[in-house]
């Protein structure tokens, strides 16, 4: 595995009386595509701004390549940022925007010219040198913002919700563009978003955050398939989160009925959260199911139907399936043991953090 490039140690930050980050620890390896994912106000942008040098943590240190850069101003850091609303210099041409950083570094004009051409080719906008930012579409402005950042050959590119202002189609296109860029440049990307689909599509590693705490760190697959707690499960895709009791290893009770599962180590009669992904709930004939239920609503979503089923054990399941079950239809419900995700109930906020820290320590990137 490649070396740790950026390390955040014990970072706390408050704005006024609001604690935004609390004793946060995180490291990012070289050439990783890391996404900080969480709802607005979870502290993800603050982390990015601390790495970029636009905020100073109240407590804790930031290390870059083993060197403490906590107090280093942004212009002396070997990283560049792509801002949320592009922040192009509106009174300069595209070429002047891209050349801004290089001119400060006193590069020769032939070098700068070559770099501008290279960067515009890289973001698929050749020949746009003399345009003004105002005359470009949102997607084009975004590409220029990326070009402006990468000509400086940063070791790390910070991206603050760069696709937030684009429409769906363009956003999906830009996701592929970003993955391509990341592979061509071979540098570290730190990406901030609240869009779980974006995170799952592009990242090598996802850091899920909530209220200033890291909830889980892992690959997109592990975060989706094995969320550590109900928050992560709920935030990453849709989920049925159900109260249950772990009777013993590999046996969980939901609504008075026992189901086989694969989880162990929870003790006897422990209250737990059971997470079942909507696509993992199978609907079939009433006789074939582990329990039965009645369809209460069905919505066509394009690829699949989204169905609500009121089950006999008193639990409302959300189901995603390609089959059509009309409202009022009596169905059997079953879930294979692998698809029950069992997680500890958070007793208090502290405990929730503890479990997240345990997890990140054990499974760190």
């Amino acid at each position, binding site marked *: 595995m490649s070396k740790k490039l950026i390390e955040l140690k014990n970072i706390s930050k408050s704005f006024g009386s609001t604690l935004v980050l609390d004793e946060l620890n995180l490291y990012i390896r070289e050439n990783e595509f890391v996404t900080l994912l969480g709802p607005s106000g979870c502290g993800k942008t603050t982390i990015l701004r601390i790495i970029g040098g636009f905020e100073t943590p109240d407590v804790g240190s930031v290390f870059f390549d083993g060197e403490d850069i906590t107090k280093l*101003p942004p212009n002396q850091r070997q990283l560049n940022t792509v801002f949320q609303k592009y922040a192009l210099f509106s009174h300069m041409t595209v070429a002047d925007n891209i050349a801004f950083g290089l001119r400060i570094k006193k590069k020769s004009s032939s070098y700068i010219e070559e770099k501008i051409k290279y960067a515009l080719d890289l973001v698929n906008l050749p020949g746009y040198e003399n345009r003004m930012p105002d005359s470009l579409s949102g997607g084009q402005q975004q590409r220029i913002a990326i070009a402006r*950042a990468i000509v400086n050959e940063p070791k790390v590119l910070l991206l603050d919700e760069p696709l937030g202002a684009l429409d769906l189609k363009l956003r999906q296109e830009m996701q592929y563009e970003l993955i391509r860029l990341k592979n061509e440049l071979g540098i570290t990307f730190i990406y901030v978003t609240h869009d779980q689909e974006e995170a799952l599509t592009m990242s090598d590693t996802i850091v899920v955050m909530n209220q200033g705490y890291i909830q889980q760190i892992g690959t997109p697959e592990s975060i989706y398939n094995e969320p550590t707690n109900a928050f992560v499960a709920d935030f990453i895709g849709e989920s049925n989160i159900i109260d249950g009791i772990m009777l013993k290893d590999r046996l969980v009770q939901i609504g008075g009925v026992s189901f086989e599962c694969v989880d162990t180590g929870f003790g006897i009669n422990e209250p737990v959260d059971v997470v079942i992904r909507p696509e993992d709930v199978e609907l079939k004939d009433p006789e074939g199911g582990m329990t039965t239920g009645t369809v209460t609503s069905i919505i066509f979503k394009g690829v699949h139907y989204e169905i609500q089923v009121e089950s006999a054990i008193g639990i409302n399941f959300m189901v995603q399936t390609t089959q059509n079950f009309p409202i009022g239809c009596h169905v059997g419900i079953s879930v294979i043991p692998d698809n029950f995700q069992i997680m500890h109930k958070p007793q208090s906020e502290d405990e929730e953090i503890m479990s997240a820290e345990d997890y990140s320590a054990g499974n760190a990137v």
Partner: protein
Amino acid sequence: MIGKILGKTYVGIVMLFLYAPIMVLIALSFNASRSRVLWTGFTLKWYTALFHSNAIMKAFGTTMALAFLSAAIASVIGLLAALAIYSMKRRDYKIMLFFTNIPLLNADIVTGIALMLWFVRFLPLGFSSVLMAHITFNIPYVILCILPKLETMDIRQFEAARDLGANSAYAFTRIMIPDLIPGILAGFFMAVTMSMDDFVITYFTKGAGVNTLSTLIYGEIRKGIKPEMYALSSVLFLLVLIILIVVNLLTGSEYKNSERR
């Protein structure tokens, strides 16, 4: 159709009432006779008389020096003040803006007397005291012209410049100032016109021997109305008009820009 004609007539009448007196003044400044009722022919002699009068030329020089100097100094102070106010928290921002607006709305005579009392205590009245008075009442105009530009400016552009390697001074002059230039210029010229226009505050703070065009006209008129004063007033009107047009062009082009965006 009739409504349109009525509307245009109404606007015409309003314009007439607003500008007829000034038009009469300008017309009289070209009248060969000293009479205010009799037109005896076109002349420029009152204007030539202006340029041959030492007192008037001196007052003109003082007015110009005062206007541009006070506007320049007020622009610098106003820019710094606007930046400070902009970075304040919401509540402090409102309080500061309130205090900024007081001199703007305060009766000139109160400001004039207050400043006079203050200056008399600490320094002799003269050009420097008038200059300070003008700077004082000009600062709020500059602030009010720059603040809206700051409000609509994308502060991330400054951060982006810092991110790309600019130190804060370079990022400020290279990125923020170009965006603020229309606001700063509008503030500057607004201050120039305010300074040229002012009579009351100047009158109270000038002391003996210093005269601006407006205090000179006032002094002369008390002795009896001379046609030279019509000419002088017309010149003053024209100067202010030109600067107003410049300010409008500056802010007008900015408006078009923001619409295109």
